[in-house]
C-alpha cells in the first residue's frame, strides 16, 4: 500500500473536496426556499381575497399550494440534507469526498428536476397524489440525482479512515436507503400509465408521505443534530446506547404511521397506523432525553448561532412529533382530521424542525468548507430570531385554527361558512408569519450567494494572476 494513502487527510483537503458540491446543493436549496415561501404567501392570499387569481390558472390555489410545499420539501429540504450528509460523512470519516465531481452534476440535475416539476404543477401537469405532484420527467431527474449523491456518500463512507461508526452515521445512512426505496415504489405504483386501482392508491400515497415527510426528515434532522450538538458543546453524545434505542424505535414505529384513522380502507390498516403513532412517543422521549443530557448545563453561548438553530429545531421536532402522534390517535383524529392542524404539523416539521437544523449545520460548515468567514455574520444571527418569530406566527395560529375548525365541524348545526369565517383571523396572523419567514430566507440566501460570488471572484483572480504572471525566460525564447 502506498504510504500517501494511509496518511490521515488534512482538514484543508477534506474541505476543498466538498466545496463545489456543497455550493451547488446549498445555492439551489436557498433559491427554492425563497421560491417555496413566496408561493406559500401567494397561496394564502386566496383566503384573504378569494378571486384574486380568478383569471390566472397558473396561480390558482389548488396549484400554488402544492407547488409551495414541493418547493420547500424537494427544493430546499432534500438538497440541503444531501449536502449536509456529504459533509458529515467526509468529516466523520476523516476522508475527502470520493468522486467530488458527481455531486456537482447531481445537484444540477436535481435542481433542474425541481424546476421541471414546479412548472408542471403550475400548468396543471400533476399526478394528483400528495407529495408526488411532480411530473414523470421531474421524478426521474430527482431519482437519478439522488442515486448519484447516495453513491458518492456511500463511497465516501466506505473510504473512511476512522472506522468506528458515529450514531449520526446510522441515521444518515438509513436515510440514504429510505428515499430511493419509497420514491421508486410510489412513483412506479402511482404515477405510471397502469397504476394500482382504487383505494390502494391513497394507501401507498400515505405510506410514502409518512416515510418522506415524517421519517426521512426525522432521520436526517436528528442524525445531523446528534453530530452537531456534541461537537458544539464539546462532549460526547449521551449516550450511544440511548441513540441506538431511539434509532431503532424511530424506524420501526415511524415506518408504520400515516394511514388516517377513519380512512375508507380495510380497518386493519388504520388500526396498525394508530398503534404505531402511539408508540412514536417512545423515540420522541428518547431523543428528547439524549438532547437534554448532551447539552444540559453546557456553557456555550448561543446568541443566534448554529447552536441556537439546532436547539430550536429539536424542540420543534418533539412538538411536531407529538402533534403527529396526536393526529394518529383515533379519539383526537376524529376532530383533527381534515383540519388545518395537519398542514400546521407539516409546516412545523419542515420549517420549524428540519430547516432550522439545516440552517444551523450550514452556518457551521460553510465558513470551514469555504475557508472564509460568512459575509454577513450578523444577518445569520438575525436570521435565527426572524425564524423563531416567523415559525411561531405561522404555525401556532394555524394549529389553533385547526383545533377550532375541528371542534366546530363536529357540531352539524354550525354552518361551514361560519367555521371558515372564524378561521380567517388566524390566517391573517399566519400569513404575517409566512412573510417573516420569507424575509429570513432572503437573509440566508444573501449569505450563501455573496459567499459564492466572493469565492468565484477569488478563483477568477487567481486564474488571472496565473495568466498575467511573466512567462519563464526559457519559454519566451522558444
Amino acid at each position: 500500500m502506498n504510504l500517501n494513502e494511509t496518511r490521515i487527510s488534512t482538514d484543508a483537503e477534506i474541505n476543498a473536496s466538498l466545496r463545489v458540491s456543497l455550493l451547488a446543493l446549498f445555492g439551489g436549496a436557498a433559491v427554492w426556499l425563497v421560491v417555496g415561501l413566496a408561493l406559500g404567501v401567494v397561496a394564502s392570499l386566496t383566503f384573504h381575497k378569494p378571486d384574486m387569481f380568478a383569471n390566472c390558472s397558473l396561480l390558482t390555489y389548488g396549484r400554488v399550494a402544492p407547488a409551495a410545499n414541493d418547493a420547500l420539501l424537494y427544493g430546499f429540504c432534500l438538497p440541503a440534507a444531501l449536502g449536509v450528509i456529504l459533509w458529515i460523512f467526509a468529516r466523520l470519516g476523516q476522508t475527502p469526498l470520493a468522486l467530488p465531481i458527481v455531486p456537482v452534476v447531481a445537484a444540477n440535475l436535481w435542481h433542474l428536476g425541481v424546476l421541471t416539476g414546479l412548472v408542471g404543477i403550475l400548468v396543471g401537469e400533476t399526478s394528483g397524489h400528495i407529495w408526488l405532484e411532480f411530473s414523470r420527467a421531474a421524478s426521474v431527474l430527482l431519482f437519478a440525482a439522488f442515486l448519484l449523491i447516495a453513491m458518492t456518500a456511500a463511497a465516501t463512507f466506505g473510504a473512511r479512515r476512522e472506522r468506528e461508526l458515529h450514531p449520526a452515521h446510522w441515521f444518515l445512512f438509513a436515510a440514504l436507503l429510505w428515499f430511493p426505496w419509497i420514491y421508486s415504489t410510489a412513483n412506479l405504483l402511482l404515477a405510471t400509465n397502469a397504476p394500482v386501482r382504487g383505494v390502494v392508491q391513497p394507501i401507498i400515497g400515505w405510506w410514502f408521505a409518512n416515510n418522506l415527510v415524517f421519517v426521512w426528515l426525522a432521520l436526517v434532522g436528528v442524525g445531523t443534530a446528534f453530530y452537531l450538538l456534541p461537537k458544539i458543546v464539546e462532549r460526547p453524545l449521551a449516550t450511544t446506547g440511548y441513540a441506538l434505542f431511539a434509532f431503532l424505535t424511530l424506524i420501526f414505529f415511524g415506518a408504520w404511521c400515516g394511514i388516517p384513522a377513519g380512512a375508507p380502507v380495510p380497518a386493519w390498516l388504520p388500526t396498525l397506523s394508530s398503534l404505531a403513532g402511539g408508540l412514536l412517543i417512545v423515540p420522541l422521549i428518547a431523543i428528547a432525553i439524549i438532547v437534554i443530557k448532551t447539552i444540559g448545563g453546557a456553557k456555550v453561548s448561543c446568541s443566534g448561532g448554529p447552536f441556537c438553530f439546532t436547539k430550536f429545531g429539536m424542540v420543534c421536532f418533539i412538538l411536531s412529533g407529538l402533534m403527529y402522534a396526536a393526529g394518529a390517535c383515533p379519539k383526537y383524529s376524529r376532530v383533527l382530521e381534515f383540519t388545518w392542524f395537519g398542514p400546521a404539523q407539516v409546516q412545523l416539521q419542515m420549517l420549524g424542525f428540519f430547516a432550522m437544523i439545516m440552517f444551523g449545520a450550514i452556518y457551521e460548515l460553510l465558513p470551514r468548507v469555504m475557508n472564509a468567514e460568512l459575509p454577513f455574520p450578523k444577518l445569520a444571527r438575525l436570521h435565527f430570531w426572524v425564524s423563531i418569530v416567523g415559525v411561531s406566527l405561522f404555525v401556532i395560529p394555524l394549529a389553533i385554527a385547526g383545533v377550532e375548525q375541528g371542534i366546530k365541524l363536529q357540531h352539524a348545526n354550525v354552518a361551514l361558512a361560519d367555521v371558515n369565517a372564524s378561521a380567517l383571523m388566524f390566517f391573517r396572523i399566519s400569513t404575517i408569519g409566512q412573510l417573516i419567514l420569507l424575509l429570513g430566507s432572503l437573509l440566508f440566501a444573501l449569505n450563501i450567494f455573496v459567499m459564492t460570488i466572493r469565492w468565484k471572484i477569488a478563483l477568477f483572480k487567481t486564474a488571472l494572476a496565473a495568466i498575467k504572471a511573466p512567462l519563464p525566460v526559457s519559454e519566451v525564447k522558444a
Partner: protein
Amino acid sequence: MKTGLGVFIVAAVALGSSWCGFVLAPTLQLGGAKLATVLNSTDTYPTQRTGDATLGLQIYRANGCAACHTEQVRQDGVACEVLLTGLGKNQPEEFKKFVQSLLPLPEWQHHSKELTAAFKDWNGTLPQVVLGKTDKESADKMADLLKAAGCKSETRIYAFGTDIARGWGVRRSVAADFLYDNPVQLGSLRAGPDLANIGVRLADANVQLQHLYAPQSVAKNSTMPAFRYLFEIRKIGSTPSPDAVTLPKEFAPAAGCEVVPKTEAKQLVAYLLSLRANVPLYEAPFTPVISAKP
C-alpha cells in the same frame, strides 16, 4: 450496528416490513377488487362514468380542487329506526295504550322516555316514528310486537354522524366508491365541504357552473377561489349561446356579453355530477328512502 452493513440490514428490515404491510398486502387484498353488489339488489356498483365525467376528473386533478375538498364521508355508526306505517284495526288511542303497556317492561325501560315523548301529542298521523335510534335486536323485537298487535311497521337502517347530519352523504365512504377513479383524490383538508355526494346535493349543472365562475354568487362570503379562466366572456352574436351561464346581476358580464363555459368547465361539472355515493352496500348498509311522491 458496528458496520455499515449492519445499519443497512436493520434499516432494510424496518422499511421492508412496512412496505410489505402497507404496499404489498393492500395491493394483494384490494388490487383485484371487483364491482360491489348493491344491498338487496342485483345491481353492481359503482357505475362507469361517462366520457365527459372521466375527463372532468382530470380537470379536478389539474386544478387542485382536492387541496380544499375531501371526497370521503365519515360516520359514527349505524342505527335502526322503527316506523309505524299502519294501525290495522286499532284506533290511535288504543295504540297509545298499547305503548303505555310496554313502558314498565324491563326490555323497554331505556326507551321509555323516547316512547313517551313520541306518543304524547300524537293524533294518529302516519308514518310515525316508534323507535328513533336503536339497535337491530330491539328493532326486530318491536316490529314483532307491532305485528302481533295487528299493526304494520317498517324497520329502517340508517347511518349517523356529523358529516351525515350536514347532508354530505347518507353513509360513510368505502373502498368500492373509488374503484373507477384514477387518480383517487380523497383529499386531506376541508376548507370547503365534502364532495363525495355533490352530484346528489347540487344536481343542477347551471348552478354548478355559476358557482365555479363566481362562488360568491351562490354562497355569500365563500372563500372558494373563482375559476373564471374555465369560462369565456364573449359578445352575444346573432343568437345567444345555449350554454351561457345565467348569473345574478352583480356578477353578470357587461351588457351584450355572455359567459360561456369552456369544454373543461363542462367536463368538470359532468364529473361533479357523477359524484353520487348513495347506494347501500354490504359494508355500509342503510335503507334507502323510497321517494313515494313523484
